[in-house]
């Protein structure tokens, strides 16, 4: 595999040789993440790590800015043609790593591949086709009016259709998506991005080199080479930065925040994240949870601010809803409502003054401090006489239990792939329906068809103000109903040496735009 890659890189270097070196991209960045890319096929898995790789080696049609707006990348401009069609103009003269030129054909190819990817097809379900107008113009067509069209377009990283077409020596299609590994696309890549994978030893290191013919000559980025080392152990990752072994690390564990803040050689950057951590109350397993008063009592008994301050050491933003700030559904009126007296009173009203016993499950290595949070919530519930039988499991074992709805209260963290509130409702609060896949992670079995309908209406509402209002209403109703117990949005943290200016290229989605990174 290394041979193939080197051969490819070699041929690229040849083709690029006559060109002048673009910019003064001469700096070297050594970085450590908690994991390295699983594969080089960006459509094989939808995960944070794969999106980070996508932004390094490919470019999307458009991308998110820091304040959750859009920024043109490979698409130069876009305009709505009608309710269901958006016309995009592609940037001209963009070269793939292979030397091929980017055309609308590549976008169509990529779109069809996304539609066939098990991980991405859900995001592209509302879309019907890519219609090619000319070499650098195409239209994205949806079935119904779709307000999140641009959100989805941030997931289209055009792939080199010529490079990925045809068959390999053993007769497999080059564009095959194979999770079992060994596909052509999982070992070779040709994108339009700022970096080319020069060498890769899975689990040990990945070496990136700047693409000489990168289209974005305005980019301030001056990094010519990146060496990514996966360091899973938190302590080791931090030590690697503090000892000067690497220049940039992510994520920074909450236990080491102070240590890094106090070090005079490194900078720490933190941000409020968008991943909501919550507990679901299973109404199918526990009769009492059907009673809105009991759910409300629990909502009053849980002290989100206490958890964020004491257990998360301030490394979390207390939540009373699912949508973080910046999302359309974020309702600024909803505040955490910790009030133990009120909670006890509600339990009394509901006729459960003496309480009851429930089971609770949480992972112990999936989210930051997940097991400690669960213990704290269990202790808080004991104050309203709900006795909790808690079990925490490693994530590999937790999710099968979650799928079986094996406990009365289960923890889940959710990040909306579309960066939009509706995604939360569709997966976490919709009435569970195994046929349509709605409410796939609704382990509370909460069901309110009226709200589901409102979300579905919002999903075809292209007037964004109206849509925001609808989604905020949903959030309000869920709050009043105490449909689930939100805890907090987990913060994000990165750290780098002082001369590595990471702050401008970071964002809340946690895919740093390393192509634009400046090292002084």
């Amino acid at each position, binding site marked *: 595999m290394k041979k193939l890659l080197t051969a490819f890189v070699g041929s690229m270097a040849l083709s690029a040789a006559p060109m002048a070196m673009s910019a003064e991209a001469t700096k070297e960045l050594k970085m450590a993440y908690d994991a390295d890319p699983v*594969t080089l096929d960006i459509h094989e898995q939808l995960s944070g790590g794969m999106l980070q790789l996508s932004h390094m080696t490919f470019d999307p049609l458009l991308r998110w800015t820091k304040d959750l707006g859009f920024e043109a990348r490979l698409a130069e401009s876009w305009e709505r043609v009608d309710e269901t069609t958006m016309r995009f103009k592609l940037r001209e003269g963009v070269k793939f790593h292979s030397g091929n030129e980017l055309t609308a054909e590549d976008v169509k190819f990529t779109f069809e591949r996304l539609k066939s990817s*098990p991980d991405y097809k859900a995001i592209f379900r509302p879309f019907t086709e890519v219609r090619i107008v000319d070499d650098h113009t195409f239209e994205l067509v949806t079935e119904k009016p779709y307000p999140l069209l641009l959100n989805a377009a941030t997931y289209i990283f055009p792939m080199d259709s010529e490079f990925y077409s045809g068959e390999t020596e053993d007769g497999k299609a080059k564009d095959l998506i194979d*999770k079992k590994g060994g596909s052509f696309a999982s070992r070779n890549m040709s994108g339009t991005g700022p970096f080319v994978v020069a060498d890769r030893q899975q*689990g040990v290191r990945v070496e990136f080199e700047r693409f000489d013919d990168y289209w974005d000559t305005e980019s301030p980025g001056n990094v010519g080479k990146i060496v990514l080392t*996966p360091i899973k152990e938190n302590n080791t990752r931090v030590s690697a930065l*503090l000892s000067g*072994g690497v220049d940039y690390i992510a994520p920074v564990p909450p236990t080491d925040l102070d240590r890094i803040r106090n070090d005079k050689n490194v900078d720490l950057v933190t941000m409020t994240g968008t991943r909501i951590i919550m507990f679901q109350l299973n109404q199918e397993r526990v009769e009492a949870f059907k009673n809105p008063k009991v759910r409300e009592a629990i909502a009053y008994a849980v002290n989100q601010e206490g958890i964020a301050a004491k257990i998360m050491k301030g490394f979390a933003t207390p939540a009373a809803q699912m949508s973080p700030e910046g999302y359309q559904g974020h309702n600024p009126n909803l505040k955490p409502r910790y009030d133990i007296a009120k909670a006890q009173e509600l339990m009394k009203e509901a006729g459960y003054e003496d309480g009851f016993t429930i089971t609770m499950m949480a992972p112990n290595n999936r989210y930051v401090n997940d097991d400690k949070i669960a213990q704290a919530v269990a202790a808080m519930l004991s104050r309203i006489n709900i006795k909790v039988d808690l079990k925490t499991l490693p994530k*590999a074992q937790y999710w099968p239990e979650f799928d079986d709805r094996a406990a009365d209260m289960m923890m889940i963290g959710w990040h909306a792939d579309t960066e939009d509130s509706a995604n939360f409702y569709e997966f976490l609060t919709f009435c569970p329906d195994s046929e349509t896949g709605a409410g*796939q992670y609704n382990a509370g079995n909460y069901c309110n068809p009226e709200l589901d309908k409102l979300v579905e209406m919002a999903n075809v509402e292209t007037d964004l103000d109206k849509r925001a209002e609808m989604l905020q209403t949903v959030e309000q109703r869920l709050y009043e109903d105490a449909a689930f117990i939100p805890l907090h949005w987990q913060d994000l943290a990165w750290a780098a040496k002082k001369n590595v200016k990471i702050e401008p290229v970071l964002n809340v989605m946690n895919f740093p735009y390393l192509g634009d990174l400046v090292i002084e």
Partner: protein
Amino acid sequence: MLAFLVQRISQALLVMFVISVIAFSIQDNLGDPLQEMVGMSVSEEEREKLRDELGLNDPFVVQYLRFAGNALQGDLGNSYFYGKPTVDVILENLPATLELVIGATLIIVLFSVPIGVYAAIRPQAWLSKFFMGVSTVGISIPVFLTAIVLIQLFSIGVTVTLFPEDTGWGSWLNGALSTNGGLPSYGRGDELTHLFGTWESGFFSQDGLLHLLLPAISLASIMLPLFIRLIRAEMMEVLQSDYIRYARAKGLAAPRINFLHALKNTMLPVITVGGVQIGIMVAYTILTETVFQWPGVGLMFLEAITRSDIPLIVAYLMVVGLIFVITNTLVDLIYGLVNPTVKLTGKKA
């Protein structure tokens, strides 16, 4: 000799069989490998399809027979995470672990023998007492703590300001107790030399050796005190024996008695224990490799567990089983060389 080897090989096969059955039967408790392979929002239908493709829905016996059939032809299956044959993955990671173990073993041999012998010959010397004291402490500190302390001292560095900086002795003490750091704290470095096959060695460059230093010391730190004490105790016993007294009475030079006659007999039990301990050390590398992000099989195994990469877990356990059988066989052979009165097949001489 031949009978001995045949016996050992059949033993190895039995060990492998038992390990494979055990590893296979715990797989249901290791979690769902699909979780690591697909995104959260992938539908149950898609998951089911993938499970079918991977053969995870077949009954246990069918799965095991398929595995055993392939294993007999030398195919231990494909790792879910790496997407290539598990044996290849292990072979790629094994050199790093072996180099770590070799490095640690060298440290142990170089330090335990002289210190152990010295402590036996001069049990009352203050230096002996010091070594014994340190080794008691060393034996009781867990390896990951040693590793973290080493990283703090020699990679990150510490600045001591306990003593008044304005007095001469204070600033001298501060300087003496502070460390600069600078040693690599993770990985094997960039300057590896390709030996053969998948073996990339760090032994041939300064950078590679520096990277090896801290991990090897922390790995050695658990075994070193044990060997110092073992050699000391054995040696003291040997020194009491009749033939040593006779040698002394005969007027042989002390070094000749100590190092030629006494040490040779001391080493017999030490080699036996050593063989077993080297096997155990391979297991201890899991901790050391995790702390130092050392890209060996221990780290690979630990990550395979968190990812429920079942084929890789099974293959690793079988390879480690094989290593144990091989080291034990080698120890028995060496034992025969050191002490010719030992008969390999266990028959009375």
